[in-house]
């Protein structure tokens, strides 16, 4: 992972950078908010750690600018003990996590590991389920045969698989698959219908159970109703 640390206390910045580099991370250190914004524009980071109280621009101002530029990098804020408003404002301005000073290095490193797991292990591009291989990378579905999926079908199937065995309402599917877009139970039904036909066309034993309107669930083998 490549990490940007914005911290004006040189001693602390040095300790943080050294510890993270020991763990194999690539670390850049800056000492003020403006420098953080500049670096974030230049380089692709996996994590940005921003101290709140910094010269030139505060961490909060830097965060707002970074987010306004469309950058969705994972941001962790370093806030002072007791400053509840800083934490709330930081999270509301688009931060993903925070640590209150003084914090333990051990905890920071654990959070970075957790972050790494989330991005690498949980967002796998290729999922296996029953006789199916879903590759969300190129939106392809493979079993006996292979077929392409649309983005919606791919996300819908992924969500069904990650929640296999659970009964999911049409509303839950709309919320997770379409997120911000306008969609209703009818859109869910059409896409369920597409997926069913596609599963059939590649001769998969996997079935999506559920009547029009939902709820729906995915199963590995055909079950008699």
């Amino acid at each position, binding site marked *: 992972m490549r990490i940007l640390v914005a911290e004006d206390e040189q001693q602390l910045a040095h300790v943080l950078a050294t510890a993270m580099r020991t763990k194999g991370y690539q670390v850049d250190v800056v000492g003020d908010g403006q420098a953080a914004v500049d670096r974030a524009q230049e380089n692709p980071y996996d994590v940005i750690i921003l101290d709140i109280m910094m010269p030139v621009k505060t961490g909060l101002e830097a965060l707002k600018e970074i987010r306004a530029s469309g950058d969705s990098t994972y941001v962790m804020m370093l806030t002072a003990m007791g400053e509840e408003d800083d934490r709330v404002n930081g999270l509301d301005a688009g931060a993903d996590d925070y640590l209150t000073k003084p914090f333990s290095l051990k905890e920071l490193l654990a959070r970075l590991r957790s972050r790494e797991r989330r991005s690498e292990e949980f967002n796998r591009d290729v999922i296996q389920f029953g006789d199916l291989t879903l590759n969300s990378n190129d939106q392809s579905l493979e079993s006996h045969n292979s*077929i392409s999926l649309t983005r919606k079908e791919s996300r819908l199937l992924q969500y069904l698989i990650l929640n296999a065995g659970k009964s999911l309402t049409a509303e839950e599917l709309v919320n997770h698959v379409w997120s911000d877009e306008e969609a209703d139970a009818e859109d869910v039904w059409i896409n369920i219908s*597409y997926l069913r036909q596609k599963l059939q066309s590649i001769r998969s034993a996997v079935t999506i159970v559920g009547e029009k309107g939902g709820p729906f669930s995915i199963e590995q083998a055909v079950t008699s109703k």
Partner: protein
Amino acid sequence: MSIYGSYDQVLPKILETTRMRIQQLNDQVVAADQPKLYEHLIGRVKEPASMEEKCRRKGYPVTTESALRRCRDAVGLRIVCNFIDDIDRCLTQLRQADWCTIVKEKDYITNAKPNGYRSYHLILDEETPYTDIEGQNPGHFFVEIQLRTIAMDSWASLEHEMKYKHDIKDPERISRELKHCADQLASCDVQMQTIRQLIHEDDEGMGQ
């Protein structure tokens, strides 16, 4: 004298007979207020030279008997359909037809070839008013039928172009792209069929 011998003149007539019979199947379906079976129908008698080449490749003696009996694609027709379920409707009609029996079926639609080729192949044993090589009349002739959607047909044309162009720069990449394209076309075919079913959900007779 070509490999087809005295059947040189007969094979085009068999092609015409089969074409007419398939057109009749479609006419009956349309007369019963059902959607047409196919979009278009094309046919050919295999060029004598390619038939000879095929016999040699397969290790058969280069004889009329090989061309008509061991090889079963001297006469071939391709039925190109709008939708996947039209292929099933064509199959139903052909299975019920009294002028032929299906002697071999290869479903490359549910079992697409690794390169992405999709099509449904049939070999018919067709009864015709022409004397066959065993001297029977009505005579029996083999006819190969290929059924596919328009999308599968366009893909096959493109693949055919690639196969016969030997100076392609990066054939692996093109093959990969073609395979991907075949999967996307299959995706569209399935989506169109699904939409068609959703439109007709409440109708009687369209069926699954």
